[in-house]
């Protein structure tokens, strides 16, 4: 029970963090029609910028400055990169974002080295918020959840209640018509790209110190976020939300389970020993298989529903 509650809270905070990434990626995908491979690089930059800023100014200024800096880079990327590459088609755009991800990684190597940096959670949040039976639940995790929920509520309100939000929604599906009504669609696209980058950056700021800030973080989180959007259905925010929570839970729970198929089979009365056929496979525990579980889920989803959970687009 105790284990279950704590792990549920952990998977919730992780899932919400994934949604901060996958929501931006989804909006950008709906708009451009291609996946932005550099999206998780903005997450990484958010973490490193926050680390750097916090060494001078502390955590709270970093919480504001780092996402803004990442948003600015996002705007530049759209305005001077993707918009130029766009006329050469989707493949060129895809390659561009791919290349950008490598450049950002090398840039991080150069500036901060290959080892993890010491980006710590702020002292003021480094206490236990409450205890569940004997487990002390860290306040920072609670802070992460509140930040994600608050940010996503803002995003929702902006998209559904403001004029610019309506223009964005309409531009995602009918950019040509929106432009013909006199709205500056290119600048709307830049805003969406910058906003998505800012969300990723913010996720980096609050995730970088909860987990780890290192040059490999973009690649590892990037593939998971990719799984999330494919699983949820490309272009669907609701799908991305559900998928983020599911994948978050699968990843968090699976590492904690020490069961294997052998446990199950033995429980069913099957006798197993080292001589049994496929013995190596039976004794792999869920914890050992944890890293591949999200991909297995993704593949299963693609077999059952090629469009993903709530996807509308082909491919």
């Amino acid at each position: 029970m105790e284990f279950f509650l704590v792990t549920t809270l952990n998977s919730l905070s992780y899932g919400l963090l994934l949604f901060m990434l996958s929501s931006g990626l989804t909006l950008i995908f709906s708009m451009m029609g291609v996946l932005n491979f550099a999206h998780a690089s903005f997450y990484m930059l958010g973490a490193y910028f926050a680390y750097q800023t916090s060494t001078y100014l502390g955590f709270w200024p970093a919480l504001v400055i780092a996402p803004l800096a990442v948003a600015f880079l996002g705007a530049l990327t759209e305005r001077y990169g993707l918009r130029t590459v766009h006329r050469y088609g989707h493949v060129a755009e895809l390659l561009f974002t791919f290349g950008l991800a490598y450049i950002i990684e090398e840039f991080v190597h150069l500036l901060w080295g290959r080892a993890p940096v010491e980006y710590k959670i702020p002292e003021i949040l480094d206490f236990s918020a409450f205890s569940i039976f004997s487990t002390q639940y860290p306040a920072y995790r609670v802070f992460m959840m509140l930040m994600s929920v608050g940010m996503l509520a803002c995003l929702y309100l902006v998209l559904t209640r403001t004029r610019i939000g309506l223009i964005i929604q309409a531009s995602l599906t009918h950019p040509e018509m929106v432009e013909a009504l006199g709205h500056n669609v290119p600048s709307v696209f830049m805003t969406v790209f910058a906003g998505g980058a800012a969300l990723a950056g913010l996720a980096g700021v609050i995730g970088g110190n909860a987990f780890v800030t290192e040059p490999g973080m973009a690649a590892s989180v990037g593939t998971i976020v990719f799984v999330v959007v494919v699983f949820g259905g490309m272009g669907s925010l609701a799908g991305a939300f559900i998928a983020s929570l599911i994948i978050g839970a699968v990843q968090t729970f699976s590492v904690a389970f020490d069961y294997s198929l052998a446990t199950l089979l033995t429980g069913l009365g099957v006798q197993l020993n080292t001589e049994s056929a496929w013995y190596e496979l039976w004794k792999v525990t869920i914890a050992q298989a944890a890293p591949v579980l999200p991909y297995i889920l993704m593949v299963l989803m693609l077999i059952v529903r090629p469009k993903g959970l709530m996807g509308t687009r082909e491919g």
Partner: protein
Amino acid sequence: MLEVKDLHSYYGKSHILHGVHLNVRQGEIVSLLGRNGVGRSTTIKAIMGQVQSSGSVVFKGQELMGQKAYMIARKGLGIVPENRDIFPSLTVRQNLLLGMKGRKESGRWSMEDMYNLFPRLRERAEAPAGVMSGGEQQMLTLCRTLMGDPDLVMIDEPTEGLAPKIVDQVANLFDEIAKRGISILLVEQKLTIALRISQRVYVMGHGQIVFEGTPDDLRANEGVRKEWLEV
């Protein structure tokens, strides 16, 4: 007011318009007629800056060629496309709001005018636009463009596939538009409405204008009708 000269347009490598000339004067209703696929829609999209083109498009004394569509719209040109590009997940009211170029109602039309012209839109104001019938969507597209207060609207086959009763309502709206001093460039295939409401008509064939005159001229000219209009 609108003067198009030697307009050439391309979709990728295919050359669709081969030197179109036409003009629309202040307060005038002008129809652009022709069979399917002759390039009528392409012409108005090219004027709106949505198709790669060359030539000259002068509107209220300013050259529009090469400008972005949103800049052209802000100069007072409106388009109502043939595919009824409503925003389906937004409500009827939100669709109308996005027709406005700024936050406030200004110019010739208010939300109230639209609701009075088409009471149906008031009834469905808070419903998602995507669930409305084809005719209702057509009205919404027209009203949405008018909310942007254009001085000239280009309307692409507004009565295509509509019930006769709704066609009458749309024709009433044209009278209302003309009364407020707005010019109309109407793309049509059916002659009946076009000949009734237009001051002048152009007939297109194969990416060029093949006839220009008054509705009476066209009625009298059986040769042009046979060759370029009737199927």
